């Protein structure tokens, strides 16, 4: 009997080990690879090697990685701030007043599903005429469009969890709707808003398609910068590993702290993970 339990336990932990290996090892290995020198990188399985910073030095001094990180950071933060300014009141309106009887909310959600080309084609020409191609402003606007519907829908779910009775109490006290939103609802939605904010930051940071089409050099984002690591003949694996590692590090940290909410966010609030 005890033997069977022990066997079961061992099998379970072997299974967990396999899962961890599959999901974590590739990510960890990229960070290990980024410290490998020119020779060591040719031998992918070499675990013991003398770590070197040459790839990092190359990335930071010879490649525009620092500028790209700055670009990504500016665009990510600015667009997320705009998204929250648009989505907080909208999510509240949908949740409390059922504005548009669900049709408007549905339309908002569908914009998230638009193939990116639907927006990219017209705005490429609009932005060219307005001089917004390859600027931070242009990308901020596109990311606002890209994240707004997601944020609205997620916040809609959070707002629905706030009991209406609280507002009635405040209304009896003579507060106006705007004051109620600011003083009563806002503190209650703050945790949900924080989760939504981090999601928007991660999505904007990871976005590639719009960055690829709408930027060239000045406002080039980290994701776009990554693909410049291979020419027609050679791939600079070492510097590329550095770039990949740095591009995914912020989202890994964000994801680690958000782990309780990732499933909830990705399912638009339908599944509470």
């Amino acid at each position, binding site marked *: 009997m005890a033997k069977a339990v022990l066997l079961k336990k061992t099998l*379970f932990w072997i*299974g967990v080990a396999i899962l*961890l290996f599959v*999901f*974590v090892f590739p*990510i960890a290995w990229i960070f290990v690879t980024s410290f490998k020198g020119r020779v060591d*990188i040719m*031998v*992918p*399985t070499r675990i013991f090697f003398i770590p070197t910073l040459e790839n990092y030095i190359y990335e930071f001094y010879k490649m525009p990685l620092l500028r790209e990180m700055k670009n990504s950071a500016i665009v990510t933060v600015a667009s997320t701030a705009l998204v929250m300014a*648009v989505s907080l*009141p*909208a999510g509240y*309106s949908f949740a*409390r007043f059922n*504005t548009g009887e669900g049709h*408007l909310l*549905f339309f908002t*959600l*569908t914009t998230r*599903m*638009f*193939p*990116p*080309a*639907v*927006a990219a*084609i*017209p705005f490429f020409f609009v932005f060219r005429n307005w001089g917004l191609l390859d600027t931070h402003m242009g990308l901020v606007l596109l990311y*606002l*469009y890209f994240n707004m519907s997601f944020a*609205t829908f997620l916040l809609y779910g959070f707002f*629905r*969890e706030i009991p209406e009775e609280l507002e009635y109490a405040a209304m009896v006290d003579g507060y106006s*709707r*705007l004051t109620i939103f600011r003083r009563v609802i806002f503190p209650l939605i703050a945790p949900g808003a924080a989760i939504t904010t981090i999601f928007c930051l991660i999505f904007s*940071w*990871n976005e*590639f*398609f719009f960055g*690829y*089409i709408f930027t060239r050099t000045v406002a080039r984002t980290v*994701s776009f910068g*990554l*693909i410049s690591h291979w020419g027609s003949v050679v*791939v600079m694996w070492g510097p590329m590993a550095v770039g990949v590692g740095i591009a*995914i590090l912020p*989202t*890994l940290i964000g*994801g*680690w702290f958000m*782990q309780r909410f*990732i*499933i909830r966010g*990705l*399912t638009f*609030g*339908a*599944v*509470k993970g």
Partner: protein
Amino acid sequence: MLTQGDEAKVERAPIVVGKRKTVLETLTSERYIKWFFLIPLLVVLGVFAFYPLFYCLYMSFHEAILIRAPEFIGLENYRKVLHDSLFWMSLGRTAHVVVVCVILEVALGLGIAIFLNREFRGQNTIRGLCLLPLVVSPLAMSLMWKYFLDPQMGIINLMLSWIGFPKIAFLSMEGVALYAIMFMEIWKWLPFSIFVFLAALRGMPKDAFEAANVDGASSWFTFRKLTLPMLKPFIMIIALLRLMWLIRIFDPLVGTTQAGAGTETLDWYIYRIAFIRFDIGEGATLALIALYMTIIIGVLLYRQLIKALGAAR
């Protein structure tokens, strides 16, 4: 003679607003407040959703290449697209990716979720670690796997050679490359279905399972008659969300095959027509066709989401 009700009316009557309300007061009044909160969203929707939609609709009836003035050609673009074998091939590939990925993710995800559905030491840490692929940027992921799958210095090929397999250029072999792309997608998104199912399993009412246990039902029977029906909405949500995301699969191709070796998907085809060939008319037509397909899925998904949100309330 005044009744009590009339008296009340008389008393309430004098409350008349003397001065005219300002615009802000009107907007924030009980009647319009819900639209007031929506103003920013409506502006953004107007600019970023309605305008592109009508632009694409307009362009889909025009011949517009590069910056030449668009010329009306009726349904010619649609005819061209529907007779275009490259379009159908890219659509077929996308469908292939969708079907394989969704089936495998649901099946594997459910299996692993059932396997993990118990209390064990360090479960939160392990869960957090397994969720990490979800936040990795798709482009960084594609480059990562380009390195791992490389025929010369890829770790996967090296491991295969230990057990006597020949080296395989996964990303440049016709017929294999598309499966390599699917593999990357599944690697990234499997944690999603695992943890959706795990959340679903943990949220299930215990008494039904206890009753089945008392009645001596076999575990396969319990799974088929109890677990699976209760999981159905979650399977729907996973399938529809993944379907929606996979239809626009683009990023994983950029770092790996660049649509070579028979991996050109629908979104890459649209990208090529619209932004490399700069045939705006045809590109817009393709984009709209992709949009119609996603909207159909969207309608189904939305119903499931609202249902799930309603149930969770």
